[in-house]
């Protein structure tokens, strides 16, 4: 019951701060609950997966997520997520704790300093993006404007998803924090499309890694189900609060919490 309410609050905060549930769930639950990191990572992936599956249909129908952009990226990320999960489960827990702590601190800094661009300028589509027909259009509801998009720098973008997928599998974090900057800043996808495609992408990337954790026994239903349901309900409430909240304040709170959780994980890994 405590875990359910904790995850409910996490779900609200995650929506208000514009981050995925997994990135808050893994460091905070492993830091403040008695569960071993193996179970927290397995459940973290299921939490991120459930959120992505629930959000995916709406995003796809409104063209805020695009299959042409997502499918090539997903193949790379999901294959590497399997490798990441296997490596993550093979390494000693303290090494994973240290790496997790460092990654969480990096994510907090990335959220602080990353300046995403609403509509990046892509003058000419590159060869790979053109061959994969990575282009489309969606309607921006706030302005009624038709936003047309295409990608560039597709190859370096795809290569970065090797690292993103690996880390998603290794730490069970989800990977929205990394997907969005790569899709937006590097490949030139508009921010709204990057956020939507990233969310949808998690439903594929996290699936592959989740199977590895599931098959190795890392899912305890008494822990997993309240976490999944709590975070999903929290997300629904968060969307409603978003209309009246001041997301900037929440964002700073999340950055502080992530820094704290990252340092805590780092110290735990170092045995301090």
């Amino acid at each position, binding site marked *: 019951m405590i875990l359910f309410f904790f995850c409910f609050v996490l779900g609200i905060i995650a929506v208000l701060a514009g981050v995925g549930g997994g990135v808050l769930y893994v460091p905070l639950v492993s830091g403040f609950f008695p569960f071993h990191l*193996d179970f927290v990572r397995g459940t973290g992936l299921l939490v991120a997966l459930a959120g992505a599956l629930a959000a995916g249909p709406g995003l796809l129908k409104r063209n805020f997520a695009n299959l042409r952009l997502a499918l090539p990226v997903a193949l790379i990320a999901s294959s590497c997520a399997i490798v990441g999960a296997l490596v993550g489960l093979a390494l000693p827990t303290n090494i994973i704790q240290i790496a997790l702590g460092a990654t969480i601190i990096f994510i907090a800094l990335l959220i602080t300093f990353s300046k995403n661009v609403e509509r990046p300028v892509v003058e000419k589509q590159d060869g790979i993006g053109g061959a994969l027909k990575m282009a489309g259009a969606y309607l921006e509801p706030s302005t009624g404007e038709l936003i047309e998009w295409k990608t560039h720098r597709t190859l370096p973008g795809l290569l970065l998803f090797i690292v993103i997928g690996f880390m998603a599998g290794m730490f069970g974090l989800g990977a929205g924090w990394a997907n969005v900057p790569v899709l937006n800043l590097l490949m030139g996808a508009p921010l709204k499309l990057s956020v939507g495609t990233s969310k949808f992408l998690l439903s594929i990337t996290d699936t592959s890694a989740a199977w590895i954790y599931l098959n190795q026994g890392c899912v305890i239903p008494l822990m997993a189900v309240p976490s999944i349901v709590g975070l999903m309900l929290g997300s629904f409430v968060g969307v409603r609060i978003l209309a009246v909240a001041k997301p900037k304040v929440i964002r700073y709170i999340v950055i502080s919490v992530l820094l704290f959780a990252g340092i805590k994980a780092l110290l735990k890994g170092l045995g301090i």
Partner: protein
Amino acid sequence: MTSQAPQAPPEQITYANLLFYGSWGAIAILLITFFVYVSGVFESYIPINEISQYWSMPVSQYVQEANIPIGWGWATLIGKGDFLNFIGIVLLAGMTIVCYIVILPYYIKQKDIAFVVLIILEVLVLCLGASGIFGTGGH
């Protein structure tokens, strides 16, 4: 002047619809099986009051001490209250594979060789992950 929203491609709509019904169905099943589990209607493989002895252990120790089956071994314990929850979890984790298989004919029809290959490879990757081939080991 406001523009008209561009229609999503048919394969994207099919994927979205399937994902919608599949994932919400899986979550509903997960909720029902969880209530069955905590209500104690079915006997649990590990009694609820003993779970806390295990959840702070590394998974390899938990699997050994609680004699937990790995890979698809959970399916043999589906009649137990705790493992009953795996139906919803596995449905959630399996939805993407189903969606990929269903949209494959759209790309075959469009003769889009690159996406046909991408989809087949992705299904293979996900099936490999789900197969339990990698279900042994751990630290």
